[in-house]
């Protein structure tokens, strides 16, 4: 609540950066050599048609539908065994890597922890330029200094920063074009997600559900950085919802609703610190002008007594109007969450069979609960939820001071890891964790910008942890096949027209499975955790696959600094 603290410093830093003085650009042999040697101009037509584009990778998750399905089939189930590394690009940042590179016309843009951006030749690995964001004096963020990538439109790149700013860069030179503050980092706002761009709008959410923020999705103007609209993920009125007794799958949440109602009578001001971060890109249906995103956990994570009610729109999927940010619908998975089993993995637009067998437009989300939830796209109604992809036990036992065991653990299920959907197999591919934990609660009032969990979660040393790629039939909710891994999985999945699924593991193995049956077809040891988001693209008729391998803070997988590119 104390935004004046760094007022002077921030003001100075902002006005300086507006003139491009505050950031560093580095390269090889003088200014001219650092430029991308071609004009970069991505049109809205290209961005809208990205799902059918077998040349470029223009969105974090491939397209506005976010299927992470690449339509190229040069690399396929028959020949993937011959896939070889073409180059490794080394960044100067040895820390958690979660980026999804953007590739346009043979030029790759990748990011690292602490908001570095590199422009690289996507065929040779030659570096064009390197931008380092000049970080403000205050940063506050959970789960590592990550960044998940840039968005591109026209000749501009857009990136959110750990100090809660949005920057626009010249894609050709890496020069800063404008910078705007999204929110106050002193209060726990920060950015690790890649923005999504459509028409004149840059859409971005915020981290901070572990710090008592008041969450949002905002739209900024691509040319000026001016704020166009804000959707608050925590409504001031009505956040108590319907006093839901059960979760989305019908299991009792063990709430003391009478006590919650009494607490709400006394004080309803907690909405200002109720959390509700948005960690991953929204999906966009341009035909109906609708934006779909999922909202994260309430603050504090584990202690619910001081935030009575359903805590809308935390742990929910939300649909808003693209042009105004106005509310359309929401669907809450867990009301009054005290386990941090929130909604993080980005929504995917697809058509599915409804209960009567008719194909209808849908939107789905892979939950930390271990279920995939499939909704009607027009009103959010739940068509089905998948069978549990990982073990569930003792749901929903309430956290205690000494710890209560429940599965899944607080990292999921499916964490921020984007799923992939292959229209040929009708399967969604979800990267799951199995990390048994005890949930501990501790009363704690709002600490003013410090980490605010209201307890802790701890792993159980006697219980083995592992990961699982689950392939789920979207029309039935049944698990078609599963592929288990020795460590919990975090990172993105990619599927291709070549009947492949690519994903990485914390032990450094980057793998390709047969999309139809989960058979392991190829693997490569990257030497550090393969926990970023794989992408595919083609240049001059040759298909490539790229994967960042810098490890992961959240699961403490071995750190590295490299991105690997593969081809036949």
């Amino acid at each position: 609540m104390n935004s004046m603290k760094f007022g002077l410093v921030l003001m100075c830093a902002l006005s300086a950066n507006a003139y491009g003085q505050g950031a560093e650009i580095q390269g090889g042999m003088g200014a001219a050599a650092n430029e991308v040697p071609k004009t970069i101009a991505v049109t809205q037509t290209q961005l809208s048609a990205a799902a059918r584009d077998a040349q470029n990778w223009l969105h974090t998750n491939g397209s506005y539908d976010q299927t992470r399905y690449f339509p190229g089939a040069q690399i396929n189930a028959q020949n993937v065994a011959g896939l070889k590394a073409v180059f490794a690009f080394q960044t100067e940042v040895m820390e958690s890597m979660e980026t999804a590179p953007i590739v346009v016309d043979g030029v790759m843009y990748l990011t690292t922890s602490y908001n570095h951006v590199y422009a690289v030749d996507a065929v040779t690995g030659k570096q064009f330029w390197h931008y380092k964001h000049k970080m403000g004096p205050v940063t506050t963020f959970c789960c590592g200094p990550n960044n998940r990538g840039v968005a591109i439109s026209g000749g501009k790149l857009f990136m959110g920063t750990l100090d809660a700013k949005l920057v626009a860069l010249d894609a050709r030179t890496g020069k800063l074009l404008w910078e705007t503050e999204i929110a106050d980092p002193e209060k726990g706002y920060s950015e690790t997600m890649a923005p999504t761009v459509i028409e004149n709008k840059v859409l971005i959410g915020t981290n901070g559900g572990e710090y008592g923020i008041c969450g949002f999705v905002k739209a900024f103007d691509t040319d000026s950085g001016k704020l166009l609209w804000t959707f608050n993920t925590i409504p001031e009125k009505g956040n108590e919802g319907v006093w839901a007794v059960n979760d989305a799958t019908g299991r009792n949440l063990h709430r003391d609703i009478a006590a919650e109602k009494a607490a709400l009578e006394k004080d309803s001001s907690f909405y200002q610190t109720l959390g509700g971060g948005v960690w991953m890109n929204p999906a966009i249906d341009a035909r109906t002008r609708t934006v779909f995103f999922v909202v994260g956990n309430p603050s504090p994570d584990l202690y619910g007594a001081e935030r009575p009610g359903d805590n809308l729109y935390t742990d929910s999927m939300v649909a808003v109007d693209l042009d105004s940010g106005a509310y359309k619908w929401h669907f809450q998975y867990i009301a009054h969450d005290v386990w941090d089993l929130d909604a993080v993995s980005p929504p995917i637009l697809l058509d599915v069979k409804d209960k009567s067998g008719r194909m209808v437009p849908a939107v789905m989300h892979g939950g930390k609960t271990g279920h995939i939830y499939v909704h009607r796209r027009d009103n959010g109604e739940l068509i089905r939820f998948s069978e549990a992809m990982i073990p569930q036990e003792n749901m929903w036992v309430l956290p205690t001071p000494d710890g209560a065991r429940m599965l899944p653990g607080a990292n999921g299920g499916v964490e921020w890891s984007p799923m992939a959907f292959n229209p040929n197999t009708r399967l969604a591919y979800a990267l799951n964790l199995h990390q048994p934990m005890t949930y501990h609660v501790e009363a704690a009032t709002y600490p003013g910008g410090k980490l605010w969990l209201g307890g802790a979660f701890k792993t159980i040393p006697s219980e083995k942890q592992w990961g699982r790629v689950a392939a789920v039939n979207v029309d039935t909710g049944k698990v078609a096949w599963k592929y288990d891994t020795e460590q919990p999985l975090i990172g993105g999945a990619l599927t291709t027209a070549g009947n492949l699924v690519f994903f990485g593991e914390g032990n450094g193995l980057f793998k390709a499975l047969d999309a139809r049956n989960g058979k392991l077809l190829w693997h490569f040891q990257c030497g550090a955790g393969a926990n970023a988001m794989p992408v595919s693209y083609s240049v001059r008729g040759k298909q490539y696959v790229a994967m960042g391998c810098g490890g992961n803070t959240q699961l403490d997988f071995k750190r590295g600094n490299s991105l690997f590119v593969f081809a036949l």
Partner: protein
Amino acid sequence: MMGVLALVLAARVQAQDVEAGGKKAEVCAACHGANGNSQTPTFPVLAGQTARYLSLQLRDFKEGRRKDPNMDPIVANLSRQDIYDLAAFFAAQKPIPTAFKQDDSKAAAGKAKADETLCTMCHLGGFAGQNEIPRVAGQHYEYIVKQLNDFKAKRRTNDAGNMTSVARTLSEQDIENLAQYIAGLQ
């Protein structure tokens, strides 16, 4: 023009932070050592600590959320600018390894406990610290033990429930092992 002027101003404000902090920190050296490299195991090493953690702790001491008989009188008259300057100064100092001699088997047990407790999810890999989450790597053994015991007994409660919850289920042996491991991360 405004941009250039503002840049100069910003640079000056930042430079003054560390320099001004250095002067203000002279009084700290009696306990915390030269440049925050404490030689006394009961007083924490401040060199290389994150600026955000230091400023929040000084604020908490000043406003009574954290209590210590030595620190309370020291912070009473610190202004907000003093706090920022001091934090910037100590954050900019290089930590010198302490004389701590690790017990390898206890440290190994401590590492296993740290993994189980997910310490590095907040404290970052190698306990290097980030933002308001302190660097604990290479901190004095005695100081780490005292803090964990204080959290466990709720003598220290300015942690928003995170560390008190973590420490609640730690045994005396766990605390000893964790401190052996972390103090040895020089």
